[in-house]
């Protein structure tokens, strides 16, 4: 048998009791090994077995259910065995098994409550073991082996012990180990954060052991506020993901890799523009959360290479109270990877991918379709037809152009490449993790004038300076640079390209380079040409250091003192180069090109922007157990301070020379220089945390933070934020332990805490004075005097607002991973939200009022996580799904007294859901003139402008006319109330497949501007409006109507009354999307080792692959195009990514 394959195939049938034993009492086991060992022989158990044609597996099940004895075997070995028929009562276990093993090609032995099945080769020895001390009589075997991770990388530092003995070793840097053992001994393979394995020693074997990461296992250590904690003893609502979840998708934005993975975390994409990182991210729908990277608040976590991340944790309840003033919206903790002792490991990861826009509205892409709409609009308006000769616009005759502007300007696929090199390793004293990465991503313009490049560097060095003193230094640096054309933010570009009619030529007189001066404000091709119209270059350099010194105080066991200092600097450099250029019209009579000068004069604006944050922490940490490990105590006292400073400088010059884009080459006339220091909030805090658990069964935690912020005046700047949580691990109680052995874990949790928030505070609201600059005026006809406005009344009492969070949770794990679940019920009640009282005061008072702590709201919801993982021979798989629901309502909202009960009903927000959308009900679309004639009066102009196809509103109050009084709540707003994810992953030998689905529901969207009506400013239209009501003969008003989806075409964004907020436009944008798929293959070790590599893994993955949504939704529902009504839908499209990658480790 091939040795590697043997190792892979060596599957352990582990049983629950043994596993619990391992999980919970491994340490104790080792300590008391000798004692247990001594009793092994004399420990007699009786069993009763009865049945015909039982497989040995069934026998083992019966034995286990009666004695708790576990059985360990190689399934291949058992395949050769015969079925047995047996009927015994209260027989010694050894004797009963002897009967079953008669004439079998295998043998067995019993060690420490475990039945080990061995091959017959050792039969003689086995038989002797039953009579004699095994240590003395069994020859010692030298067991060699290698420990690999799930992905096939060797793991150093794994402890290999012989069960029941003090013998042990750890793996070297290449994952290899050598240990002496006797046949029948059981090797225990364990590493923190991984599922321990037990392997029976059967022969002189070379083993390859795959150690599974304990992603959902209770032994897993989770990063929590200012520390770590075993998952089993957690009492807060905390979710965490490890690196394998983050690297299964290749994306430039880390938050995309988190979407749907952490129950309670909501991530919605806003656009796919390279280098923008503008996803909407929050916890339980609560608003911007605090993000802590390696212990320090840092807000650019999206740019960290997922390969450098060890874990991401979110704190969703009172467990966040240790973060005080900024914790009300939850906290995200990002921890980066550390090196592990062992030989240097070099990993190279490279991927190449293509981006392709997901479903996105497109304009009409030919001239004739557009001209038909224009003619129809003129027809119904009673105007002469503007293009009776529309059929000539085929593009064949240069006088009748037909241009596909969309096709000319937009790329179909855009490349993205990603490379990273990681070196990690170390010795006893020093470990290191170094990574260098690069991301390069192209934008969507055909001129290739948009691209983004990011370079990351990260070094994490951990040094043991003396026995008790350790130092950890994390350095990270990042440079990113985005280039884009001057004249086209995605807003400008889509606005122009959607409305640019196809009947206009690219070039005047069809002659390059005379860009035609058409109806769009700028020629769409010219604005994406950086050489012609200028560029924007946006560079951000980011440098972060974190130094931590930890000292284990020698005089008190378990007491540690730690100091941390972080210095983060961000340096932004922006260059905006606007070039004057011409667009042309052609005068055929004079044979002359008439130029219009655009974006003149040529101008360079350069901005430098520097921000520095410093943070210092000093903490005392105590951890100990008492009374034979019955009482576990942990305590933390910490003080920290954080301060930010920054400065900004801007210079601008106009140019007569446009060949050099340097300020030096500009003119000094009308130059501008300005700048100012930034005032960034500082804070200072004292943090305390106390954990206690009794037998890991009854758990309790109390924490507090005394926090001060510079945003508030002296008297009110300090706040005290306490929280507590308790937990009860029911499975540790004997009534479960003894009766329901399939229950691995069952825990009830409750938490309650007060958290604060200052994020909406404007700052300096407690000061009086005049705000400069505010407005400006020219007093002398020559020079500008900047103005200063009265700041308004101060509020000397302004302070943080508080959130009271309550969370109740249940966790369960059953049948060793076959089922696990978590249910959370939560409520967050906020008081003292900042608002201005102005609307409650008579305007004749005349003053701007300051922010005051006036309003309140409440948010409630639940989360459910369900998981299942299993292994069938070589195939292991994992299913996990999560669901979050949250909805918020106002408790108190500042508003003026309503004039009457109707106004109260219509306008009040008091004690009302926050996401209500008002609008009109829609009966349908008018099918014919008769329906129009008998309908209620639809608008101020009666029925005079209506045609079949127009929207027929519901006369909700039945007063015979449609007006504002007919509006009622018809929809919910753009933030989804439900968010869900489903992860399916499977692995078979070297192949792994990971499918991830994610979706959202209970929200809606209403399009506007060019997505709501055709012919904006009389120009082109969104292609969807071709599906419209129209006359059969587009030139004849009297021809019959042909129904369509949208109303009949009207010039200038369509007919106003059709566009009111109504159920016609508000669309439920529920979706489920196949967010990511990854198929990976690890090359067989024999091939890999030939090139001295430890692992070679190739993969293909895709992101945003497919979306299920309502059939009427013609855009990407996650994108929420113009969902907030202000952006006109001109958002950069979301991207689907397809990547090929390779991961090589040496």
């Amino acid at each position: 048998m091939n040795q590697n394959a043997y190792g892979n195939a060596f599957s352990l049938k582990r049983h629950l009791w043994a596993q619990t034993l391992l999980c919970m009492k491994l340490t104790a086991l080792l300590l008391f090994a000798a004692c247990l060992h001594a009793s092994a022989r004399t420990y007699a158990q009786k069993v009763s077995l009865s049945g015909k044609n039982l497989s040995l597996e069934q026998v083992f099940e019966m034995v286990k259910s009666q004695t708790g004895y576990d059985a360990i075997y190689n399934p291949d070995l058992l395949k050769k065995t015969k079925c047995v028929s047996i009927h015994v009562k209260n027989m010694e276990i050894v004797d009963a098994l002897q009967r079953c093993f008669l004439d079998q090609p295998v043998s067995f032995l019993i060690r420490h409550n475990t039945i080990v099945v061995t091959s017959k080769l050792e039969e003689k020895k086995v038989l002797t073991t039953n009579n004699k001390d095994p240590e003395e009589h069994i020859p010692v075997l030298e067991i060699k082996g290698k420990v690999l991770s799930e992905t096939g990388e060797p793991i150093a530092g794994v402890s290999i012990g012989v069960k029941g003995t003090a013998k042990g070793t750890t793996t070297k840097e290449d994952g290899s180990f050598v240990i002496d053992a006797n046949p029948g001994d059981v090797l225990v393979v364990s590493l923190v954060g991984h599922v321990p394995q037990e392997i029976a020693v059967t022969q002189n074997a070379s083993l390859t052991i795959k150690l599974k990461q304990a992603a959902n296992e209770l032994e897993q250590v989770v990063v929590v506020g200012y520390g770590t904690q075993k998952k089993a003893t957690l009492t807060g609502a905390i979710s965490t993901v490890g690196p394998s979840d983050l690297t299964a998708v290749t994306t430039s934005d880390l938050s995309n890799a988190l979407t749907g993975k952490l129950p309670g975390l909501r991530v919605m994409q806003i656009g796919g523009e390279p280098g923008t990182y503008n996803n909407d991210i929050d916890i339980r729908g609560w608003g911007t959360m605090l993000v802590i990277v390696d212990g320090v608040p840092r807000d650019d976590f999206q740019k960290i290479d997922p390969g450098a991340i060890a874990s991401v944790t979110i704190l969703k309840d009172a467990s966040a109270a240790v973060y005080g003033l900024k914790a009300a919206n939850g906290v995200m903790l990002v921890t980066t990877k550390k090196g592990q002792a062992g030989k240097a490991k070099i990993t190279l990861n490279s991927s190449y991918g293509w981006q392709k826009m997901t479903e996105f509205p497109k304009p009409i892409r030919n001239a004739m379709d557009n001209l038909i709409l224009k003619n129809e609009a003129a027809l119904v308006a009673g105007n002469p037809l503007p293009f009776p000769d529309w059929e000539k616009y085929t593009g064949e005759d240069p006088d009748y152009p037909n241009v596909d502007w969309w096709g000319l300007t937009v790329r179909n696929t855009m490349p993205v490449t990603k490379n990273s090199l990681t070196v990690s390793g170390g010795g006893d004293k020093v470990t290191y993790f170094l990574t260098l990465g690069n991301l390069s991503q192209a934008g969507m313009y055909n001129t290739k004038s948009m691209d983004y490049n990011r370079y990351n560097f990260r070094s994490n060095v951990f040094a043991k300076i003396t026995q008790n003193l350790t130092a950890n230094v994390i350095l990270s640096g990042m440079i990113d640079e985005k280039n884009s054309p001057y004249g086209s933010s995605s807003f400008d570009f889509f606005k122009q390209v959607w409305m640019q009619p196809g009947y206009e030529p690219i070039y005047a007189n069809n002659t390059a380079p005379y860009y035609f001066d058409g109806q769009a404000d700028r020629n769409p091709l010219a604005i994406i040409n950086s050489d012609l119209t200028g560029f924007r270059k946006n560079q951000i350099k980011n440098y972060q250091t974190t130094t931590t010194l930890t000292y284990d105080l020698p005089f008190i066991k378990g007491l540690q003192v730690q100091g941390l200092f972080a210095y983060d600097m961000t340096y932004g450099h922006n260059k905006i180069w606007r070039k004057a250029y011409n667009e042309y019209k052609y005068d055929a009579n004079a044979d002359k090109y008439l130029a219009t000068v655009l974006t003149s004069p040529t101008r360079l604006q350069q901005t430098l922007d520097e921000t520095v944050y410093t943070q210092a922490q000093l903490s005392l940490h105590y951890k100990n157990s008492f009374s034979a490990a019955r009482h576990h105590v942990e305590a933390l006292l910490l003080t920290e301070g954080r301060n930010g400073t920054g400065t900004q400088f801007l210079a601008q010059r106009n140019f007569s020379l446009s060949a050099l884009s340097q300020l030096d080459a500009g003119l000094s006339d009308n130059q501008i220089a300005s700048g100012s220091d930034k005032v960034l909030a500082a804070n200072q805090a004292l943090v305390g945390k106390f954990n206690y658990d009794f037998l890991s069964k009854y758990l309790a935690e109390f924490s507090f933070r005394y926090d001060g912020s510079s945003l508030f005046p002296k008297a009110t700047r300090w706040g005290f934020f306490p929280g507590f949580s308790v937990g009860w691990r029911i499975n540790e109680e004997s009534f479960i332990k003894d009766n329901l052995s399939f229950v691995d874990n069952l825990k009830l949790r409750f938490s309650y805490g007060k958290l604060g928030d200052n994020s909406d505070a404007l700052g300096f609201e407690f000061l009086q004075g005049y705000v400069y600059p505010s407005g400006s005026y020219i007093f002398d006809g020559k020079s500008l005097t900047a103005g200063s406005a009265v700041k308004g009344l101060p509020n000397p009492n302004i302070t943080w607002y508080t959130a009271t969070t309550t969370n109740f949770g249940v966790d369960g794990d059953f049948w060793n991973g076959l089922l696990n679940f978590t249910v959370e019920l939560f409520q967050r009640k906020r008081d003292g939200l900042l608002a201005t009282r102005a609307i409650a005061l008579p305007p004749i008072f005349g003053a701007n009022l300051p922010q005051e702590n006036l309003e309140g709201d409440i948010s409630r919801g639940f989360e459910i996580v369900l998981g299942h993982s299993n292994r069938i021979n070589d195939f292991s798989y994992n299913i996990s799904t999560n669901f979050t629901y949250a909805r918020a309502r106002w408790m108190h909202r500042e508003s003026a007294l309503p004039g009457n009960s109707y106004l109260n009903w219509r306008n009040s927000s008091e004690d009302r859901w926050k996401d209500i959308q008002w609008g009109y009900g829609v009966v349908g679309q008018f099918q014919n003139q008769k329906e129009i004639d008998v309908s209620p009066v639809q608008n101020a102009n009666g029925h005079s402008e209506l045609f079949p196809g127009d929207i027929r509103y519901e006369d909700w109050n039945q007063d015979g006319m449609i007006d504002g009084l007919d509006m009622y709540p018809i929809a919910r707003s753009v933030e989804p109330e439900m968010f869900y994810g489903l992860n399916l992953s499977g692995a078979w030998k070297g192949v792994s497949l990971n499918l991830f689905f994610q979706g959202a529901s209970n929200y809606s969207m209403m399009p506007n501007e060019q997505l709501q009506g055709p012919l904006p400013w009389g120009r082109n239209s969104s292609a969807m409006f071709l599906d419209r009501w129209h006359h059969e003969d587009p030139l004849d008003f009297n021809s019959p109507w042909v129904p369509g989806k949208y109303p009949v075409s009207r010039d200038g964004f369509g007919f106003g009354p059709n566009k009111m907020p109504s159920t016609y436009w508000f669309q439920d944008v529920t979706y489920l999307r196949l967010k990511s798929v990854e198929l990976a293959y690890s090359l067989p070790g024999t091939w890999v080792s030939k090139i001295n590599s430890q692992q070679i893994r190739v993969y293909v993955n895709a992101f945003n692959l497919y979306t299920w949504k309502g059939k009427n939704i013609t855009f990407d529902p996650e994108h929420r195009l113009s969902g907030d009504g202000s952006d006109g839908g001109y958002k950069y499209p979301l991207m689907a990514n397809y990547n090929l990658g390779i991961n090589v480790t040496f």
Partner: protein
Amino acid sequence: MNKIYKGVLILVITASCAILHGCKKNYLDKAPTNILTEDVLFSDRAAFNTHMAYLYAQLPFSNFFVDMGTYLSYKTDELVNCTQDQNPSVDPNNDWWVQGYKLIRDLNTLIEKLPTSTVFPGQQEMTQVLGEIKFMRAISYYNLAARYGGVPIITKVAQLPKSGNVSELYAPRDSESDVFKFIEAEMTEAIGMMSTASSFTEYRFNKWSGLAFKSRTMLYAASVAKYGEMQLNGTVGIPKSEAEHFWTSARDAAKEVIESGTYAAYNENSDKVLNYHNLFFDKSGTNRERVFVISYVWPLKGHNFDRNAAPFSHRGGVGYGGRFCPIFDMVESYEYVNDRNGALKLNNGGTPIEYADPADLFKDKDPRMFASVLFPGSPWKGTTLKIYAKIIEGGVEKDGHGADGITQPEATSTGFYLSKWQDPAPPRPIDNNSSDADRICIRYAEVMLNYAEAELELNNEPEARKYVNMIRRRAGIEELSSAISMDDYRQERKIELAFEENRYWDLKRWRVYDKVLNNKDTYALWPVYNKDKEVYTFEKHMLPPGKFTRNFTANLYYNRVPDAVIQTNPLVVQNPGY
């Protein structure tokens, strides 16, 4: 070894303590970089001046140069925005109640605090500035009264009630008559304080611009008294008996300006068209028609008038254009030089008249029309505007599609463009904020007309006619020899001050708005180009009623008091008809 790490440890602890606690005293005390304290403001002249700049910028001179949405001429019978629906019922500055009282509070604060401050070295300057501040307050009240009628007169800086009971801040509306009398008294006092000396500029209030505004204000009050009706016990409306007082006050204020000789009607160019057009561009001292002006200086502060007004083929690179389109009736209102009937000669007994040059249709029109309106065939920036709605080619009539309209998007739909503040030779390409023509808020011609109107209402027709004729003479059209009627006067005011946002207020105060814009259809001039004969004919074309028909109902003479005002101050009553 032990010593080393203990040393390091102590270092860490001391460093952290130093950072956290050593600076604790002011670690959390940060100073803003954008706030001038009250102490500084009331002791430093430059700092005080920044606040004055802010206050001047807050004055409610609707500035359609910057924000065309506020342009009051859209609401009148002068012009339309071809690209938008018309709705004359809404005052674009409807929020002025809130804004106005904010400004009034700032002014009240200064009136209380300035006299005891050390900003100014001498009493004289202090008096001048206090006069300006008082005058701003009076202008603010005028703008409230012209919109809402009577409003609460607040002259003290109110404090938040200690009891927390906001009802202590409630105040009822004073009568419209009292408000105008308060404005009159305040203006008189302020005018007395403001000097005519060296600090005189047209960009700040001074004695003369104060008097000029006073004549406008008093004319408004007098008209309301004479033509309006009293409602809500005088909360809106002024007793008829007070009309004469206000006419007299208006006349005296205007007369004082005239007699001072400070100003003169602009007459620097013998070409009457150029002269009238340049009046709005000439920033030099020779332009003595500028009484109160908001200044623009590119690139410090520019506006978008050229961008918004440009004919289609002359638009700047940023688009827009064609936002101001004078309507057919307005163009007909311009008289001929020697004929007071300005009707355009489209037909001869029903047969369209053929013109070889479309501009011939406008031959002999008032030079002020040529300086204010662009029409089919207008010369403009070296070209001739090609505006036509239809073409007849080979005997077939089809859509015209002229280079400058009609039916081009963003081109005129009335056949006309506004050129009053358009620069025929802009010094730079049209772009956002590329224009810097000054906005003249009140000019000498208006003062002369105000004087004429007051004299006419006070039955001094010869004096009124004299001033109307001075305006007509400067414009270059025939003078009126026989006694003029009120309609004659109003016709002259309409033309001389066309598009300058006076007409909106004039129609309101004369209480003729609901007659002038009574379900009024809007007409365009549709030129038809006969390509076969190379001649033009013209049609009077009605624009789509749904988009352009305007109506003004009688309740609109007073704005609706914002609901929030009444909800937060129950003593305030709503205006009639809402």
